[in-house]
């Protein structure tokens, strides 16, 4: 390569101290001392010799150690097979690496070499040449005389992308208004649907709840569903049923008959990003989401008191049926879960509503 293609013309531009050139080479101990050199040599050989031993140990552990054997030793409580395989395999691989590097560091020649760099940029002749080649190509293509060709092929290519994009239109159902109303804007809660305790799946009765108690519940209709449908509904339908002293909470006029003597039901799905809210603070009536710590006041229509959630928890209107069980009066009056663009949030409960 020519010397006129260096990255910079003036490598000494900023130098106030003359470049002394590469440091003098200092012999390593392994070069100067024959014994040290031989010791390094032996060490490398020993490390490499240990690898087959460890490999065999790995195979023995694989076949001999029972799958359910556990090690319980100090801080280590783990599968014996896993620890055995990891320790032998890991050490074997590690030793290959250490041996190779020790070889390079201690035994290979360590004279530094210098290589000249060349600028990435091509020289002027090359640039002119490629420009000329391009110009020749353009000339040969005939677009200068028939300029529409270029626009036409560009346009055709552009339009050919459209079918490819449209092919993806079936990735999911289209959330038009009707679809939204049947999916993300609704749950399986409806009139007369029993509230089931989600641990023993028994219907809840008011007398089961003492003041301050919170129970997670699901609609009885959830049990009729399976597979995907079950999961989708279960992601929207969970509720918390909580009993508070009616005197210590604020029940707005419009929601006076949504509750049964201080027993209120709220969506368990956070209005932030949809985690199931779990942590109940009995004294303050606050419900805290463990994901992002949004906190809702169940004693005040589920309003947000802290955290990134922006909307109150939707409340489920409930009553007691003839048999004395808690049932829903209807579905939620607003969509549950995280916000989405087409969500009409004008009907949500906000501070000051009554």
């Amino acid at each position: 390569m020519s010397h006129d293609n260096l990255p910079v013309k003036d490598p000494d531009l900023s130098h106030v101290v003359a470049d002394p050139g590469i440091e003098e080479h200092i012999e390593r101990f392994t070069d100067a001392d024959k014994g040290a050199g031989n010791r390094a040599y032996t060490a490398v050989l020993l490390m490499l010799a240990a690898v087959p031993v460890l490999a065999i140990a790995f195979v023995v552990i694989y076949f001999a150690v029972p799958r359910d054997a556990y090690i319980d030793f100090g801080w280590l409580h783990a599968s014996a097979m896993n620890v055995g395989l990891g320790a032998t395999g890991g050490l074997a691989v590690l030793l290959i690496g250490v041996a190779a590097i020790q070889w390079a560091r201690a035994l290979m020649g360590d004279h530094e070499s210098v290589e000249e760099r060349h600028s990435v940029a091509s020289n002027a002749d090359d640039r002119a040449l490629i420009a000329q080649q391009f110009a020749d190509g353009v000339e040969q293509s005939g677009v200068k005389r028939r300029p529409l060709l270029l626009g036409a092929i560009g346009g055709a290519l552009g339009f050919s992308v459209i079918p490819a994009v449209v092919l993806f239109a079936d990735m999911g159902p289209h959330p038009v208004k009707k679809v939204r109303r049947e999916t993300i804007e609704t749950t399986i809660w409806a009139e007369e649907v029993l509230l089931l305790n989600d641990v023993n799946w028994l219907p809840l009765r008011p007398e089961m709840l003492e003041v301050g108690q919170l129970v997670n519940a699901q609609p009885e209709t959830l049990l009729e569903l399976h597979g995907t449908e079950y999961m989708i509904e279960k992601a929207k339908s969970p509720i918390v049923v909580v009993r508070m002293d009616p005197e210590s909470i604020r029940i707005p006029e419009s929601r006076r008959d949504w509750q049964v003597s201080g027993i209120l039901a709220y969506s368990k799905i956070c209005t932030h990003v949809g985690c199931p809210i779990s942590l109940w603070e009995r004294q303050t009536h606050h419900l805290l989401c463990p994901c992002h710590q949004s906190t809702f006041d169940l004693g005040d229509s589920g309003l947000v008191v802290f955290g990134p959630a922006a909307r109150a928890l939707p409340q489920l209107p409930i009553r007691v049926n003839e048999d004395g069980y808690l049932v829903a009066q209807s579905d939620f009056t607003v969509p549950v879960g995280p916000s989405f663009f087409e969500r009409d949030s004008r009907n949500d409960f906000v501070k000051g509503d009554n």
Partner: protein
Amino acid sequence: MARPTSVVDSSPDVEAREADSTNSSQTGGVLGWADDRLGLAKLGRSGLLRKVFPDHWSFLLGEIALYSFIVLLLTGVFLTIWFKPSMAEIEYDGSYQLLKGLPVSEAFASTLNISFDVRGGLLVRQIHHWAALLFVAAAFVHMLRVFFTGAFRKPREVNWLIGIGLMSMSLIAGFAGYSLPDDLLSGTGLRFVDGLIRSVPIIGTWAEFFVFGGEFPGSILIPRLYMVHILLVPGLLLGLVAAHLALVFYYKHTQYPGPGRSDNNVVGYPLFPVYMAKAGGFFFIVFGFLVLMGGLFQINPVWLYGPYDPAKVTAGSQPDWYMGWVEGAIRIMPNLESHWGPTTWSWAIFLPGVGLMGLLFGALAVWPFVEAWLTGDKREHHVLDRPRNAPTRTALGVAGITCYAMFWLAGGNDIIATRFHLSLNAITVFMRVAVFVAPVIAFIVTKRICLSLQRSDRERTLHGSEDGVIVRSPEGGYSEAHVALSQDEAFALTQHLQHEPLAVSSDTDDAGVAKKQQVGRVRAALSRWFLGADVQKPTVREIEHADHHGELPEVESSDDGKPQLH
């Protein structure tokens, strides 16, 4: 009609003869065979085998990322042999007794199968997860090394951009993989992603329905993520990694300043054999450590979390570390949301989630061009900056790290609250302030430290360094002599180029005719802010002056090698 054959008087030699074999006989054997067919020996002319690479520990960071990636490919292939990417519900019937008989997804059941019933499966699963964490971590630290040493400068801007692409791809790969086992934690992560996608203004709901194939969680997400995780993103990563390495090779590696190092050369050891042994050996070291970690340190015990249930969540749910800062931003964001007519604009999720990631990657991507614009620097750079010699850049970098760290800490605000018995709400409010204030403090402090180090470099170049021997004079005073720096060190401390801040250029030419102004007032002001504070390095005259006028006591070595004063 047939034409008569032409007859030649002298016939050529028609005897069968072997092809000229001189080429292969010279190199012989396998090499000859291969070269006859591929012509690879020509590459030797460019010094391929003996290509020089400089040596420094910080150059290993990128290697760690590369080797983790290779380990990910190897272990990932093993895992695909048993993993079933399906959300179909089955009854778990494996050897983990505590979940026996429960309805779980095929994905979760096959993850348990790999963990408990395939011998070595748990080891490989854990290596895979540790390697993924290490991959992203090493890539991040490698990027910081490149940033702080100015290795992104001309001509390497393109490779910097490829690196940004690698970084964003690796986050997607990591997140998709984290979601595959369909355990409670990964399902919670997906629930968050669902909320994040929904929050995108105008197209959010459509995007959600397209990604999840309908409502969350649907039945098709895990198969789709599987495709993303094992085909789409690794394919892109492989291509980008190849391009990234090819450019490193093509440009030749940057080097730290030192004697004999300049922008026109590269000083180090040859690829064959030294770097092959060192880099190859280092692959085995990284691999070995990952295998040991997989054997000894438990990670992601999905059987303890249980299968995903949209009605359950555990306290202390955290994503893998690299998503922690987004998680933190989501947690501390005030609850902004606009309800305009029948629409909902969920700023509290969109801004910290989508916006912040866009901001980070966008800012990183444009930085090399912004810096070149601020300095007006068009030179090629192959000698790295010492971070102190670019004080404003270094301070900005540290401010960025601090901001990231604050967001990241906020992602663990619940853990901090329980571990340190602090109020969760107080931590959250504190973090809301800290993400803005802490970076400013970090910027100021770092810049001062850099300038002090520049001052100290200048001082040492002119007056030498203290020799470490305290001498008591007969009068009882104490003093410490200075030893002149070696020329090697003096060169390393002073070789860098100090850019002058750009001055406002005239907007008229010599004849007074208006022309396009090269440097406007704003650019000049920003350039002053970026470069203006530098402590000037000593000039040639100052160094000569210091040498000649006895500022530096003459020093000679005595027999025992200790410098002594005259």
